[in-house]
């Protein structure tokens, strides 16, 4: 059985008319990508975190990039999950 949040988020994602134009998703600009990498490493100050969260709020497909950045750290020596 899926986790309750997974059920809810999948349901909303599939019924959200605002995200039907998924083909128009754009990659983050280089400076935002760098901020996502820093966030993944836990190296952002509170003000920068707030800025990145604002970016993610308006560009939800970038959350996958953040998740990938965190997962990429698993392969690095000295990183434990």
């Amino acid at each position, binding site marked *: *059985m*899926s*986790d*309750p*949040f*997974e*059920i*809810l*988020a*999948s*349901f*909303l994602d*599939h*019924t*959200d008319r605002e995200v039907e134009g998924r083909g128009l998703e754009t990659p983050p600009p280089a400076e935002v990508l760098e901020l996502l990498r820093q*966030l*993944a*490493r*836990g190296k952002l100050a509170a003000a920068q*975190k707030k800025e990145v*969260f604002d970016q*993610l*709020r308006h560009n939800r497909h970038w*959350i*996958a990039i*953040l*998740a990938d950045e*965190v*997962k990429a*750290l698993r392969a690095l020596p000295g990183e*434990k*999950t």
Partner: protein
Amino acid sequence: MAAPDGELSNEAALVLGCVQGDSQALGRLREKCHSDLLHILLARGATRTEAEDLLADLWCDCVPGGDDRPSLLEKFNGKCKLLGWLSTVMTRRLIDFRRRQSHKVTPPDSDDGQEWPERVAAPSQVEGEDALIEILRRSLQQAFDHCPFESLLLLRLRYMYKLSQRELAQMVGWHETKVSRLLSQTMQEIETATLAGINQHDPWLSMTWDDFLDLCSSLETEFL
């Protein structure tokens, strides 16, 4: 909600028999599900008469009536439990029935020469078909909108992208227990706000959190 493979194959055989018009299969299906569906409808706010009428229609619709009226069960895609799918169908029909009832109005005494049927705008087809999805989506979206984005982000990263609580804690610079507490608390807030939203918009519709999750899960299989 996923069902065990053996159960699905038994249900698939039963559904196939029903779709082909096998009266024994139709009888077994009714025997297997009628009582559960009756209880589900009553629990969701139907009167006994409404529940029995809706179920009578359901069993009629399961019987194939030729090319122009195939069995309702042809729409069952087998990706969830049959009872879950039928209960979703019945909840949809209950909501549509209640909506139609609320649209019914008594013709007024009038001498303006206008025919009565031209006065009343029928509810749109889309509105009727999507009523259940719309109720669930609206209440859930409102609940999400009330949550801080940071909390939703952490939930999404935890459960959609399978990051560990430790990874989340390192990312935001918190202790793991703070992350854990925030995730649990936010889920509780979503549950409370969602059910309150349903109660606010459709107070007759009675639903537990497990019902809500089952419906979302069952409807989700329609999108796959």
